[in-house]
């Protein structure tokens, strides 16, 4: 009410007093809100990853013992990372897949920096289960890649989503080859 009076230019001596009180109310409210926010933020942020958790953020892996066709799993940030030494057939199969068949289109070149080494976070992009396919005898699904037992998502030989509820391809971590046989993940 006082606001509308002031806004329409009717503010007399009395109105001016009310306007000042309104201003004080707003200013107090604003400072209060900022203060509450400033107190809440440390509480919320304390639940984010702590420095020691962040410090374990990268690992180095020796690839020399991994045979062609072999898949190994390493642990990175508490999650499995799949390292697949792909066979030429698997690379070929992945390369000739038309983009139109893919739910989350990506070429094989985009999926693997070196075609023979496919390095991915082994966590289903649906709800975080570990897809099967790393071990001998695991079901690999109809595309010869990985099969998630939880809700039936199927990934191909480039870790791209082909069937099931998962929305995206298996995530690629940041990685760099230090030399021919060593890779740094993270």
């Amino acid at each position: 009410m006082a606001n509308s009076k002031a806004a329409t230019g009717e503010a007399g001596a009395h109105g001016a007093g009310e306007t000042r009180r309104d201003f004080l109310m707003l200013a107090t409210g604003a400072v209060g809100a900022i203060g509450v926010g400033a107190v809440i933020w440390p509480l919320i942020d304390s639940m984010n990853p702590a420095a020691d958790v962040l410090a374990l953020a990268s690992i180095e892996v020796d690839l020399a013992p991994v045979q062609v066709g072999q898949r190994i799993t390493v642990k990175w940030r508490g999650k499995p990372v799949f390292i697949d030494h792909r066979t030429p057939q698997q690379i070929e199969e992945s390369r000739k897949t038309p983009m139109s068949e893919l739910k989350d289109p990506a070429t094989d070149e985009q999926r693997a920096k070196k075609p023979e080494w496919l390095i991915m976070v082994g966590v289903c992009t649906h709800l975080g289960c570990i897809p099967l396919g790393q071990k001998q005898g695991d079901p690999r699904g109809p595309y010869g890649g990985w099969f998630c037992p939880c809700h039936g998502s199927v990934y191909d030989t480039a870790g791209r989503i082909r069937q099931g509820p998962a929305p995206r391809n298996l995530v690629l971590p940041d990685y760099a080859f230090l030399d021919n046989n060593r890779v740094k993940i993270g």
Partner: protein
Amino acid sequence: MNGTSAQDRIVKWIDQRLPVFTFMEHELREYPTPKNLSYWWNFGSLAGFVLVVMIVTGVVLAMQYTPHVDYAFSSVERIMRDVNYGWLLRYIHMNGGTMFFAVVYIHIFRGLYYGSYKPPREVLWWLGLIIFLLMMATAFMGYVLPWGQMSFWGATVITNLFSAIPWVGDNIVTWLWGGFSVDNPTLNRFFSLHYLLPFVIVGVVVLHLVALHAVRSNNPLGIEMKGPQDSIPFHPYYTVKDYFGLGVFMIVFALFVFFAPNFFGEPDNYIQANPLVTPPHIVPEWYFLPFYAILRATPDIVIPFTNVILIEAKLAGVIAMFGSIVLLFFLPWLDTSPVRSARFRPVYKYFFWLFLVDAVVLGWVGGNPPEGMFIVIGRIATAYYFLHLLILMPLIGRFERPRPLPQSISEPVLKGGGRAAASASAKPMEKA
């Protein structure tokens, strides 16, 4: 409280300064209760009883439990093997969760059948739903604490639900975990919250009771009490009825605790959590299965006649699952019928049972792997769940012709409105 004996004088002295005794007299003794409540009205007090059991056993268990990824699993095994009566306390707490949900589900469906959510009981209904949501959060976090395979993978799947939120989803999940996967920080905060939330539930239960005592209990006829002739004091009439029900309930509870303590459990949860191996078949506890089925049922939502995905299956599933509970908050308005009790609603009555069957079917689908016919059945049952609440409830209320309601709670008994035998035997009471 006539102020003669020493005890009465002490009570009076306290009561004038803190009116707890007056309060108890009003709310626990005199509280006028409809005189026609059936045994379906036992389940509220049963839920209260289980809540107390859970808090008492939980506080004692927390004295023995270690919330650390390296020790949690063995500390639970230590409770089972070494702690005096540890096995008993843990089995009561484990099965108490199951009993709590069983009792609360009956309580909720009782409310659905007798229209206990309708005016003036909307806020009472909301508070009940809030208790239900808090219970689900508490039960979920409690299940993580033993740090078995199902604990770990259940926690992973459920926290990953939040990654479906566009843009900020992944940040939210990292924040929930306190890391990049379910790990020690996650276990610690779940323990903290699992200890906290039951007391929040107690607070909301108090509000639930305040709201109940403001609007008074509904009853099987679904009509309001018209005067003192329609009510009886809570004590001793319903205290004794509740005690009887409690006795029956405790027999069932004890049967599970002593003879089938792991009946509702998953064997996989006796394997310590392993972040690198997912169990072949992840299932939540039985009381989450219908919601789990809804979560998995949705396909990608596509713009018709194109391949453009509007909502990914994952997000759609999460929306449907949370929506299935959020919708219940709107039930007082989705149900357009002015008649509360399904006894007088010849059409709705059948749909109520269909809805109950639908919930059971969803639970059955949720407990099975998402393959073959289970996908189809899951989708049909999910569709019916929403159809029932969003379309059928408003339409039935509009087009159904309810049967005539009795004039009062006493009338069918006293004036022959009910069965002949009932009216005959009730005649003498009319004179009194």
